[in-house]
């Protein structure tokens, strides 16, 4: 644990910054669509997941519009059902799961570990194409009439009752699954085999640990959903009977298989987001992380425990009460790992030197909202309580708090934090802060009332509802509009900054880490001018002199 920094022979790169970087390496479409550079692939992902987010968001807005009134007046129930299904599918499989790994993971992983690229660049590009093909299938489904099964595809509804396009969408997800698997595989091998000299496991930035944990979950979980969807499609087309009670099958088996993947999937969503939080909270507190090892091991804990709690989605679904018992207690154990992280981030701020730049505001947002989302997850894991709120808006509120309040906040924190590194430009700080507040306020207005709605008993996936729920629903819709405007604003100024933004310099936040201190913004195609050698623990803020200008020199290894 060498605490001192060797600051010998810094390489002054001011002039180099004017020169080539990964963005200027080529301007043709071909140079983008056939690129093997992980940073360019990250940009491709950024474009595609953002598009998907807005597509999903438009579905959400239409849904909220419909829910303003108790009757189903704007859409036929049929269409409403398609809306929430497509909203769930697009948001889960095409936005939130690939978002952080695809964009930030791709961009940062090799930079953070001092590698020139991921282990298998070709595979990396292939992942993106597979994702796009999967997305195309799903989008085709939308155009051709949609699906109405809910994102959970419960049998026997999806296989014997629904008249909509279940098979193409299932196929699309099957394909997309492979994108996720390949990304995970690639990242995992990269972390094992491509670390720079001196970068031992416990010197890795925690973001890397998070990505590592996420990759393992992707690798072990995704194949199961793939084969499950395959069986469901076969059931639908050939009536093979595996999930159809009329043919001797058990519909609950589908739920087991589905949640065996889909619960771990929620950690695929949140864990990389938590990784982002580590980096941002240390940087803006100028403080090394509190309890590095505890957080690192909590990630490992997620890998194991996320796979043994899936039954908490099936508490009233007809599974054994004894199973429910086991799954409930395991859910509480998995909660502890999140608790460790939340407490450690808070403790990291203690005695720090805290500044309030936009990324840090998102961290605050994340902390509060994920906390509420996570704690209400504990509500749901209490068996007798879940009986009442299962499949009500309480659950809807819970998962939006963790997914939007948690992951989307973390994603935005990350995007704002690394934007200067990715594009070499600054976004307009005060507008960004305003947008953050808009999103935060809009979010709470949208989803907090849903907790109450849920406890009052409003079931989810309802196109119409009894009159007494209207007041809260109107609040929720109003919040949704504010939220939507907030997101729109963010997209607008981000695009604006690409053209008009101020030049960022190589390390505008005075952050530690190879990606900030050892290369330019934007980095060159091969990432570093010289392979870095790591000789300190991460987040070594106590050893930096912040009065210096961090934007000038690329630090080199000894």
């Amino acid at each position: 644990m060498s605490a001192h920094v060797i600051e010998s022979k810094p390489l002054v790169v001011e002039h180099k910054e004017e020169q080539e970087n990964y963005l200027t390496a080529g301007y043709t479409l071909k140079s983008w669509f056939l690129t093997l550079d992980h940073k360019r692939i990250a940009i491709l992902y950024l474009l595609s997941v953002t598009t998907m987010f807005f597509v999903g968001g438009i579905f959400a807005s239409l849904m909220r519009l419909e829910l303003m009134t108790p009757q189903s007046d704007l859409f036929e129930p049929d269409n409403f059902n398609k809306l929430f299904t497509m909203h769930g599918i697009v948001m889960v499989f095409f936005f939130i799961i690939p978002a952080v790994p695809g964009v930030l993971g791709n961009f940062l992983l090799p930079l953070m570990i001092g590698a020139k690229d991921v282990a298998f660049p070709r595979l990396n590009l292939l992942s993106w194409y597979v994702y796009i093909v999967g997305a195309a299938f799903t989008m085709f489904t939308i155009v051709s009439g949609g699906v109405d099964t809910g994102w959970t595809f419960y049998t026997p509804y999806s296989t014997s009752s629904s008249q909509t396009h279940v098979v193409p969408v299932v196929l699309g997800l099957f394909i997309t699954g492979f994108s996720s698997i390949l990304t995970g595989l690639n990242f995992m091998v990269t972390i094992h085999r491509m670390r720079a000299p001196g970068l031992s496991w416990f010197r890795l930035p925690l973001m890397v640990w998070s990505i590592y944990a996420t990759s393992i979950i992707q690798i072990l979980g995704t194949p199961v959903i793939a084969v499950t969807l395959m069986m469901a499609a076969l059931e639908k087309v050939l009536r093979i009977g595996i999930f159809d009670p009329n043919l001797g099958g058990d519909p609950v088996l589908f739920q087991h298989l589905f949640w065996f993947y889909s619960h771990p999937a929620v950690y695929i969503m949140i864990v990389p987001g938590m990784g982002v939080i580590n980096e941002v909270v240390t940087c803006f507190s100028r403080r090394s992380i509190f309890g590095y090892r505890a957080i690192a091991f909590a990630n490992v804990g997620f890998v194991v425990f996320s796979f043994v709690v899936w039954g908490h989605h099936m508490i009233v679904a007809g599974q054994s009460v004894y199973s429910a018992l086991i799954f409930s207690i395991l859910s509480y154990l998995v909660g502890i790992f999140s608790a460790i992280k939340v407490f450690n981030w808070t403790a990291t701020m203690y005695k720090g030197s805290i500044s309030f730049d936009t990324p840090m505001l998102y961290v605050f947002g994340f902390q509060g909202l994920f906390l509420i989302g996570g704690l209400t997850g504990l509500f749901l894991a209490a068996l007798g309580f879940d009986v009442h709120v299962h499949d009500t808006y309480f659950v809807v509120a819970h998962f939006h708090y963790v997914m939007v309040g948690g992951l989307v906040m973390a994603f935005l924190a990350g995007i704002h934090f690394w934007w200067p590194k990715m594009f070499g430009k600054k976004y307009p700080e005060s507008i960004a802060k305003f947008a953050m507040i808009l999103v935060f306020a809009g979010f709470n207005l949208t989803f907090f009332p849903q907790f109450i709605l849920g406890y009052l008993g409003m079931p989810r996936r309802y196109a119409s509802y009894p009159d007494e729920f209207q007041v809260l629903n109107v609040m929720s819709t109003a919040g949704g509009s504010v939220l939507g405007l907030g997101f729109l604003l963010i997209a607008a100024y981000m695009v604006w900054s690409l053209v008009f933004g101020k030049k960022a310099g190589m390390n505008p936040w005075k952050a530690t880490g190879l990606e900030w201190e050892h290369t330019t913004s934007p980095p060159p195609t091969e990432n570093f001018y010289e392979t870095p050698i790591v000789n300190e623990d991460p987040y070594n803020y106590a050893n930096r002199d912040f009065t210096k200008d961090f934007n000038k020199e690329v630090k080199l290894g000894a």
Partner: protein
Amino acid sequence: MQSSTVQFLPEQASSFALQVDLLYLYLTAVSAFFTIGIVGFIIFFSIKYRRRSDADRPPMTVSNLLLEITWIVVPLALSFVMFIWGAAIFFKMASPPKESMDVYVTGKQWMWKIQHVNGHREINELHVPVGKPVRLTMTSEDVIHSFFIPAFRIKADVIPGSYSKLWFEATKPGKYHLFCAEYCGTKHSGMIGSIIVMEQRDYDAWLGNTKDSSLAEAGQKLFKTMGCVSCHSADSDIKGPNLEGIYGKQVRLQDGSVITAEERYLRESLLAPNAKLTEGFTANMPSYQGLMTEEQILQLISYMRTLTPVTTNTGLKTLPTTALGQTPKPEVTPVQTPKPVTTPTATENKLSGSPKKSEPAK
């Protein structure tokens, strides 16, 4: 009906309601504690340690094992309370009292079909007396539905091909929402209805008005028309087992195992009689798969239930039902036995949750 102001709790109309609400309170309190605590610290640190100058150089973080252990152990302890509390309620919800009154529910896109033991049927409405445990035996004709009564805080998925159970004891007369909570297709949100809780007297009157033949009677008719009697009566050529006292009996199977004859087993006996052969009999019973509706199956089951004498909470033992093939007198079907003893009132019953223990006749 409900007032237009925003409420925070649905009505408390069953013996579970208060229990679940108390748990809710505990969960909320723990959450509030942590949320306020952590947000409080964040705000406090943000003010106290805000950056005053770029020259600020915070010290190295020191880790503090004791602190870390504390914040693992305390939440663990608190969440164990959540677990045990939640599980306790859940187990009560999963164990209907023996003396419960039975109602049969069939879900179907997109309606609830309900049959009372006396054969009365309702659609999307369920009338029950206050203060009496009611046990629902539910199945579905097509896809999965979920029977949800917010005011009672109960819910269970209704699954084709198997029976789910749900029980409650209403504590307050009134009309409450019945929702389908598992997404089941186009009119999922239209698959709603109401639960009407009545005073016992009103309930009896309501029930008395109904002219339908009782469920068990209908079942009994089926027992004849479907030809069950030809085997399951003393004088038939092909012998089937004696069905007297079948419900709840420990049936010994050919492979030596023992199984309790309840709904699931009886249903299987009709649809797939040879899957579990009764000891001493051959695989002679035909399958009625596809020949009966779910409702008819329920009727038959309900009839077979009457063949078992039941102890009710009045302490009376119902008369043993008549020999097979004869009409059992409907008034002796156990669930209909009037209950003269005091009905536990809502207030008495709130905390204990489970209905008053019956004093068995023995």
